[in-house]
């Protein structure tokens, strides 16, 4: 079996605020294989973005990583000094966000911004960097790269801006791309273009992609494996088809049942009762038990651990009901 490219072990992130300490991430474990598209899915406030930012040690103030290890190429990133992290960001691990416009500097041309990133990590001349940038854009299927490079960010459409962000992310040859809701702000036809592009990159360049999204449809259509996050914990993970076609955790089941489906038109949707916890008050036992119809005393007192759901051993879920008689 190949070594994972990235392994997150027992990650905890806390935000100290005036209202109290927010437990944003509560012991996340996950592994991303080389060349894999890995989905991290959950609703707002589940800790998926914070997990993504933790990998690059970019958790914003007042957040702090309080425990855990993040292994990348045999090294624990959490023990690395800031200077070493700057080298890793962009060079080895790159990140793109929901709103490309806020990540691009409005007063410089796109070409200027891409070449600057290239020159920060590689000792090449301005011309070489420019050619390399144009090559990357061309590689991403952007028509007329020279024109795009001479444009300012606001002159480009949202989809084109996101492509430029991907080009910047990949121009230095990063092995891992963290994509935090990369298509949420885009129209569906443009979303389809970007997803297609990310998929092609993975296949052609062998880039691993951590796809952070709230959209189960996006996960279903693009990811090899997926982890479902709830209240800062992975509650279910495994091959995408297994998790989405045969969900084992009541939360995953609830999410899937809440989706409007063409097969059940005009029938009322199944909502999950209650709302996502705020992360300040500690929930004893299973974090999902207050909203779970199947919860019993065990669920209220003991936190379930990730358990294999089927014989393959790849599909895991953190629920006390697994293994008990069905029904």
């Amino acid at each position, binding site marked *: 079996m190949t070594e994972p490219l990235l392994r997150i072990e027992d990650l905890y992130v806390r935000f100290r605020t005036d209202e109290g300490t927010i437990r944003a991430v509560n012991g996340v474990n996950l592994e991303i294989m080389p060349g894999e598209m890995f989905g991290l899915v959950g609703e707002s406030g589940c800790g998926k973005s914070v997990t993504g930012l933790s990998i690059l040690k970019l958790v914003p103030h007042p957040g702090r990583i309080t425990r855990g290890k993040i292994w990348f190429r045999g090294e624990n990133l959490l023990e690395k000094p800031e200077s070493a992290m700057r080298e890793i960001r962009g060079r080895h691990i790159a990140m793109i966000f929901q709103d490309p416009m806020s990540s691009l500097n409005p007063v410089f041309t796109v070409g200027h911004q891409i070449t600057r990133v290239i020159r920060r990590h590689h000792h090449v001349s301005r011309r070489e960097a420019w050619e390399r940038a144009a090559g990357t854009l061309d590689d991403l299927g952007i028509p007329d790269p020279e024109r795009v490079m001479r444009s300012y960010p606001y002159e480009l459409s949202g989809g084109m801006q996101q492509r430029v962000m991907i080009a910047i992310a990949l121009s230095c040859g990063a092995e891992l791309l963290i994509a935090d809701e990369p298509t949420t702000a885009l129209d569906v*036809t443009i979303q389809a273009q970007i997803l297609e592009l990310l998929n092609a990159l993975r296949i052609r360049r062998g880039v691993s992609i951590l796809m952070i999204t709230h959209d189960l449809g996006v996960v279903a259509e693009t990811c090899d494996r997926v982890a479902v996050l709830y209240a800062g914990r992975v509650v279910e993970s495994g091959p995408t088809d297994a998790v989405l076609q045969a969900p084992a955790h009541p939360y995953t089941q609830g999410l899937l049942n809440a989706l409007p489906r063409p097969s059940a038109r005009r029938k009322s949707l199944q909502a999950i009762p209650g709302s996502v916890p705020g992360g300040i008050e500690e929930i004893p036992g299973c974090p999902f038990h207050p909203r779970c119809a199947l919860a019993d005393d065990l669920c209220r007192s003991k936190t379930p651990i990730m358990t294999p759901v089927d014989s393959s051993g790849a599909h895991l879920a953190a629920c006390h009901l697994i293994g008990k008689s069905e029904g």
Partner: protein
Amino acid sequence: MAFVEARDLTKHFVIRRGWFARPTVVRALTGVNLEIERRETLGVVGESGCGKSTLGRCLIRLIEPTSGQVLFDGEDVLALHGEELRSLRRRMQIVFQNPFSSLNPRMTVRDIVAEPLKAHTNMRGSELTARVIELLRQVGLNESHLYRYPREFSGGQAQRIAVARALALNPDFIVLDEPTSALDVSVQATVVNLLEELQAELGLTYLFISHDLSVVQHISNRIAVMYLGEIVEMGNAEEIFHSPMHPYTQALLSATPMVDPETRRERIILEGSVPNPANPPSGCHFHTRCPAAMAFCADEKPPLREINGRLVACHLHE
């Protein structure tokens, strides 16, 4: 006669960049015709800039159409003025996408929900409060929420407040402008259910605007698909979803990510992005991105014509 009817509805926004610059005309809506029956939900889908929000706002005259006609229960909405228009507003309401921007952050829930009642009725004091409580209960909230401010609520609860406000005057017609787009899936489900229950209970007519085809097909009886200010396909929701006829509808459906493998379609990836509505392409607006475009699509605009009980504007179906 239909309950709500738009005839040749057109809205051009004129944007002036300065005293000497030539004004730009953005054609947000061009010659839209539609009918909505009583107690029906008409879904409107399309990408950003297709004019779906402009359509909704023109129908209830939140913005003035440039030309065309809107008939509401037989009454010519655009011919009304002053008090006549104001009293017609009792019967048509709107719910916006983001409750945190559609609810005044400095007003309590009671004042927010009471506002339309104060504007149109003589209800005051405890009578008013009682009616507000009744409305809150109707949307699944209660009197403990009366004196809170919008920011103290989650997105789903805040959207319920907006719905309660829309219901206050017992309207017949509600424009729902992306009412669930800012919400998480599990919360979206509760709001969609609420809207459906209220419709059944109160006999409401909806115009449901969304970019999300799966929500629209779920809630709508009929669907109108818009592209660059025009309706390109309109008909029964189920039929459109299962056998889209217009190439744009087909592309839109195939691009919508689906969880179930059986509803997934072969991806049609459209080239480029939506053209600028200030300068739309000639002929069929979609020809620049259409995988099935023919030479004369650039010259001749296809009219919206009826084919098997459905309206389609495409030269392929002639």
